[in-house]
């Protein structure tokens, strides 16, 4: 009998049960995919670096003459557990032609052969690339757009007199160089093509290099020993490599925030669904009580019903959560292999959780069965006793039309029910605003400041000159380069200052410890040209500023002193200021411009900078022409401060895709929830709708009432979202930037998107889909008053 009643119930209330089931599927899908994504993102970089075989310390040498320079260090070093060494050829844009055409890039790259026991590379489907066929090549996925390379293109790499021609067979994910922050790219080729370069001594001498991938438990010792080896072009511990993915992780964190928001939405939707449907069943509960069924029996009826629906919904949601989760992560994982060792277990946990939540909620909601009398239940849980008059605006004296009054009255009469809907839509609206504000922040002037450079009008990314002047000319070439440009600009009637930012690696000694640190030094700048969080700009050679991240990590604060170890001397310096920076993962110090440095410790630089006295559009245009003429670089490598920051971060395009994708997904969620909730309301209000039609309300008025009601709800939701957008963006997104040592970032507000475009979209989607769903009321007729229970 019990099962018979259950079967009849499921059949008779088919629409509502179907809506509940769809809600459960959605909740299960959101919760399962979000839980998995949370774990994936929190483990993101480590998981990828492990998969890519990135060791604990990476050292790269440049030039054939440096071959063997690591031998002594690597042989029998007790601090090294294992290591691998692989050869590469360094190239720049000048060496490459795609389909016979020159490429526009300021970055340099590597040509290598994949080795089974070294770094691991993956194709875009996350399959391991074990070998490259002869005449073919893989290319770094992050730079596809920059180079305009696509599958099937022919790439010619010419170094000196040697030329190889390869066909691109796909894009490749690369642990070491894969992040947007790493400007280098990589070609994976077959050993045969690689050997062509090996045969040419002139090529070998200048372009050959080695990358050593070291596994160790004692990074500190390795770091210290490496700093004493000459000929090192690049060295970094794994944590620094991981930090280069911070921008990808910032994007992933945005997905994580959206995932958490979807978890909240799932809870709210479930709460709404269970309360809503059980409330509708109180009449039947009353009947069952009246005919003598025990509370336990009645409760178990509903719990079994919801358990059945929860299990079906959770299973379907579980299967849908796998592609949905991948969809959420797809854009941010374009350059990374994301995943977690738990696999789909987290999805499973999420779906099982949904079952528990539904059954638990159903159990709590039906607890009123015990307390209520049959009559109370028949009256839908209300005692019917009220001695005061209903307050507020009345139909007769309302200043609005009937439809608007009915809509407002419904919301004020069932505040709990509508609060759930408002909260759901507000979360969705907030997400869109937070995403827009993150993008806005990432393209703001603030980001240029966080790149630890002086704000100037133009940034010249002349990689060839940077390498030549910084390394081969023992660091002496920068000033003549800048002086030449300054003179050329002056000849064209443009007064300008030029400056340059160099990064060195030096050892420091502090509180009995030694540490190799990134040291920033400006050429042609003053210490007051930079932004500091606290303290005063260093004024002499024995004063330094320290990054916020380092201040915490090394426990060195303003007023503290430490020793800088230069090859020819040691200098005791005092910290006078703290700054925040994205450079080197936020771990760096800034030294005075007059401190004597040396090319052997030069690590990297990003751009020569031009600061015009009169930055008019004409002068800027003319300056670009002069720079192109004098340096021979492509104009695309002469950037303003905003584009410079964007180039360095390397994720803006991805961020825009992430923003678009998340906004679209959010709007789809809003659409689904709107349709399902509206259909729930129609199902609940069928009798009222039929009665309204019977007494002369037109279809248009009834649809208008429903659209107006959801319109008000959507309006309130976006209003709440707009009020909370600024403080919550700061509260949620600033810590994400803080991962990189820039927790004092002021999140900027994209006024147009946060306060106009996205709220309007949420509002419009809600209104449009309420209208579409509300047209179902046309199927309810006046004569249904005879049939509805």
């Amino acid at each position, binding site marked *: 009998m019990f099962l018979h009643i259950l079967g009849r119930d499921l059949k008779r209330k088919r629409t509502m049960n179907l809506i509940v089931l769809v809600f459960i599927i959605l909740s299960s899908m959101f919760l399962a995919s979000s839980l998995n994504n949370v774990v994936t993102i929190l483990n993101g970089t480590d998981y990828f670096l492990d998969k890519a075989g990135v060791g604990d310390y990476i050292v790269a040498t440049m030039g054939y003459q440096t071959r063997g320079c690591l031998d002594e260090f690597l042989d029998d070093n007790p601090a090294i557990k294992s290591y691998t060494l692989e050869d590469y050829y360094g190239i720049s844009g000048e060496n490459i032609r795609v389909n016979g055409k020159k490429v526009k890039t300021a970055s340099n790259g590597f040509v290598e052969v994949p080795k089974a026991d070294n770094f691991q590379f993956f194709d875009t489907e996350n399959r391991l690339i074990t070998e490259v066929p002869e005449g073919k090549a893989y290319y770094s996925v992050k730079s596809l757009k920059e180079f305009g390379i696509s599958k099937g293109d022919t790439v010619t790499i010419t170094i000196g007199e040697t030329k190889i021609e390869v066909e691109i067979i796909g894009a490749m994910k690369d642990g070491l160089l894969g992040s947007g922050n790493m400007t280098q790219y990589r070609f994976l080729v077959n050993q045969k093509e690689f050997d062509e370069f090996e045969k040419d001594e002139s090529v070998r001498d200048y372009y050959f290099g080695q990358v050593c991938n070291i596994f160790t438990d004692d990074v500190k010792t390795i770091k210290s020993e490496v700093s004493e080896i000459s000929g090192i072009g690049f060295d970094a511990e794994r944590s620094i490599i991981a930090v280069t993915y911070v921008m990808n992780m910032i994007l992933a964190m945005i997905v994580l925030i959206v995932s958490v928001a979807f978890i909240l939405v799932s809870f709210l939707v479930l709460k709404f669904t269970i309360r809503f449907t059980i409330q509708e069943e109180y009449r039947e509960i009353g009947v069952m009580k009246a005919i003598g069924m025990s509370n336990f029996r009645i409760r178990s009826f509903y719990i079994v019903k919801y358990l059945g629906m929860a299990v079906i919904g959770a299973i379907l949601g579980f299967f849908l959560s796998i592609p949905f989760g991948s969809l959420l992560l797809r854009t941010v994982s374009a350059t990374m292999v994301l995943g977690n060792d738990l696999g789909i277990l987290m999805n499973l946990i999420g779906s099982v959780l949904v079952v528990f939540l539904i059954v638990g909620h159903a159990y709590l909601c039906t607890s009123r069965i015990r307390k209520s009398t049959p009559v109370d239940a028949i*009256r*839908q849980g*209300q005692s*019917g*006793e*009220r001695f005061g*008059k*209903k307050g507020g605006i*009345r*139909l*007769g*004296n*309302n200043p609005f039309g*009937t439809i608007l009054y*009915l809509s407002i*009255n*419904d919301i004020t*009469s*069932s505040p709990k029910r509508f609060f759930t809907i408002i909260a759901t839509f507000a979360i969705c609206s907030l997400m869109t605003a937070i995403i827009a504000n993150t993008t806005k922040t990432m393209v703001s002037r603030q980001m240029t400041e966080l790149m630890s450079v002086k704000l100037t009008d133009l940034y010249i990314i002349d990689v060839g000159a940077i390498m030549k002047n910084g390394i081969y000319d023992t660091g002496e070439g920068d000033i003549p380069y800048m002086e030449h440009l300054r003179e050329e600009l002056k000849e064209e009637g443009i007064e300008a200052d030029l400056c340059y930012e160099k990064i060195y690696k030096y050892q420091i000694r502090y509180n009995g410890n030694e540490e190799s640190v990134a040291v920033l030094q400006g050429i042609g700048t003053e210490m007051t040209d930079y932004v500091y969080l606290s303290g005063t700009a260093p004024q002499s050679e024995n004063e330094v500023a320290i990054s916020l991240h380092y201040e915490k990590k090394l426990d060195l604060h303003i007023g503290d002193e430490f020793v800088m170890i230069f090859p020819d001397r040691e200098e005791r310096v005092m910290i006078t200021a703290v700054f925040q920076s994205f450079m080197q993962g936020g771990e760096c110090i800034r030294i005075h411009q007059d401190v004597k440095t040396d090319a052997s410790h030069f690590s990297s630089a990003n751009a020569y900078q031009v600061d015009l006295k009169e930055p008019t559009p004409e002068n800027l245009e003319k300056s670009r022409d002069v720079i192109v003429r004098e340096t021979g670089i492509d104009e695309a490598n002469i950037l303003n401060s905003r584009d410079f920051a964007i180039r360095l971060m390397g994720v803006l395009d991805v961020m825009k895709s992430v923003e678009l994708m998340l906004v679209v997904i959010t709007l789809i969620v809003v659409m689904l929830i709107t349709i399902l909730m509206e259909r729930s309301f129609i199902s609940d209000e069928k*009798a*009222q709708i*039929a*009665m*309204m*039609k*019977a*007494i*002369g*309300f*037109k*279809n*248009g*008025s009834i649809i208008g009432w429903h659209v107006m009601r959801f319109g008000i709800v959507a309006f309130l939701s976006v209003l709440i979202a707009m009020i909370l957008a600024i403080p919550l963006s700061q509260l949620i997104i600033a810590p994400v930037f803080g991962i990189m040592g820039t927790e004092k970032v002021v999140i900027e507000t994209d006024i147009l998107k946060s306060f106009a475009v996205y709220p309007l979209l949420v509002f419009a989607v809600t209104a449009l889909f309420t209208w579409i769903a509300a047209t179902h009321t046309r199927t309810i*007729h*006046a*004569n249904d*008053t*005879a049939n*509805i229970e």
Partner: protein
Amino acid sequence: MSAILEVKDLCKTYIVNKRQNNVLKNVNFSIERGEMVAIMGPSGSGKSTLLYSVSGMDRPTGGSVLFDGREISKLTENELSEVRLNKMGFIFQQMYMMKNLTILDNIVLPAIQSKKSSEKKKAKMERGLALMRKLGIEDVADNDINEVSGGQLQRACICRSMINDPDIIFADEPTGALNKASSQEVIGELVRLNREGTTIMMVTHDAKVASRCSKVFYIVDGNIKGQYNLGKEEDHEAVAGKRERDLMNWLMEQGW
């Protein structure tokens, strides 16, 4: 007197599980202005279908329904809504009301929605209250619909059906869900309304209720089998028993 409702060859067919079910079969009758007509018949005979078809709440399959000389089966949905709003009143057995509105708001809802007169909202509210006063439910004006008794609720439904001063009120078993006392109160109000000039057509199972009408149609298997003219009830107390007995006898003859 002129006919307010003329029904000719009215047919209504439903298709259930691919089977044609002819619920109304060429029904013909007319109702004069000011009449109070009861439709009686066994369960499933088509009483409610007839009521809904002639009131424009349902579309007949065939035949014609002239309401006040206008063919309502040809009207559009919106035109039908206008007719129902301004010229007809409805009382349902189930006492449907908007659950988020108070009793008074429910009563005046059709008036507020109607553009029939230029009357102010305040005046409409006062008229609603006056109707409630007339039916003795003024006290519950500000109550929610689940805070009143069934009798009070049905009287509220009567008030709502009267609020736009309709030409005719259709009632589908208006006392079906009420106890004896409440039934008497409700039917008393309908008779009073009829005396004031409102035409009433109701479906009922209750011979006592039907005996207060001026005319009774007996419907069997989708056809009007017979018509019994009781005439206007002048003095209820004096003639109630006789009218009911006469009607019962007639109903017995019809196979009741």
